[in-house]
């Protein structure tokens, strides 16, 4: 995996770029890099929370609740520790990507949840 440092996407300080064309101050490579890292973090946190939900034997809504709690928790951690509390400077749409679950994430969670639930609670 590439380096796990998020990069600031704004080339110049926002004060300077205020009068310039705002489309040109965002570095697309850095945005893509950050989104990649974020999706990895989300997927891993979804996998671990899925395994936890399965082992704990959560069913129905409590499992999905754990998923959203872990999603929010990882988003909070990323925005606090990696983005210095200003996620809007690192993500293109004002930091909403931090809490937006992707399809891969949701299905990864369900997969691990089902697997561990089956292993621990269904067989034998």
């Amino acid at each position, binding site marked *: 995996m590439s380096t796990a440092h998020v990069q600031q996407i704004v080339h110049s300080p926002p004060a300077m770029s205020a009068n310039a064309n705002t489309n040109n101050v965002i570095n697309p490579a850095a945005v893509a890099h950050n989104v990649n890292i974020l999706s990895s973090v989300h*997927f891993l946190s979804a996998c671990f929370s899925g395994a936890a939900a399965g082992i704990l034997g959560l069913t129905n809504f409590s499992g999905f609740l754990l998923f959203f709690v872990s999603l929010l928790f990882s988003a909070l951690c990323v925005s606090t520790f990696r983005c210095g509390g200003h996620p809007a400077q690192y993500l293109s749409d004002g930091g909403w990507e931090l809490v937006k679950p992707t399809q891969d994430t949701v299905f990864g969670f369900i997969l691990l949840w089902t697997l561990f639930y089956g292993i621990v609670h269904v067989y034998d």
Partner: protein
Amino acid sequence: MQSQIDLFAEFCHRRDGCLCLFLSYIHHSSSMASATSLYLDPSIRDWVLFPISLVMILVGVLRHYVLLLLQNKPKPQTRPQIREQRALTRSQLLRATAAHSPLAPPFYHTISQNLKQAFTDSVYLKDGPPAPKKVTKGGTDSDEPEFPQAPSLFSDPSQMDNMMAQFKTQTVVMIPQMVIMGWVNFFFSGFVAIKLPFPLTLGFKPMMQRGISTPDMDTRWVSSLSWYFLNFFGLNGVYRLLLGNEDTGVDLQQMTGMPNMATTSPAVPQDYNKLFKQEKENLEFDEGFYKWIGEDVEDRVLRKYGKLPFV
């Protein structure tokens, strides 16, 4: 209080009968009439769930490398082609900065004039200017006085190559999935494989319990084909983690056979002759906006330090 009825739902003789499934319905006779629980044979876990997941992960990795092998490098562009594109880029750069141009007026106007002249004579076209008298670069006789039409998507051989590559990619993505699905269907059908931790509506029952003819069973108990589908959707992230973050070619749009034309199709062939004509007009238009950033700079500096009165 509890009467335990063991019943064989399925008796599979594959794998020497070790995959037989003992369904034990425990009827809680007290209050809940149909709160049933099933105990599944652990060998289902060992010989069905794990093999399916393992095979799918390994096939995904293999597919990634096969796709890498199939990717042929984009052909290097010839020098005239690059020159054609760069001329356009240069003109666009010039225009984009015209309102605060760092170029002094003589330079700006010279460059602008030169580009306009070049666009008019179309010296930058990759096939050379279309004048019938001039001999083009490859020594070929220029019989066609007219500009060649923009190549259509199907006539250009390089475009055909691209479409062929796309087709190959799709085949490599689709075929293993079909094979695995057939494998799961053939060997692992007809018994309950796992219980989902969340309920599904009854609409899923024919799909998730295909081959299990127990009309009263809860929809949470699903067959191995459902486990295959869970893997199919859930392993994309695993592939990404395993194989690095670049596109593994397994995104869902390709899976479903609908290639995303906007991203997968290569650059559409463009009629540079038309583009040049348009660019020439744009250049003329933007000359009106041109303003040198260093205009009156002496006065501005002097005013800044108070040597000249403000106006």
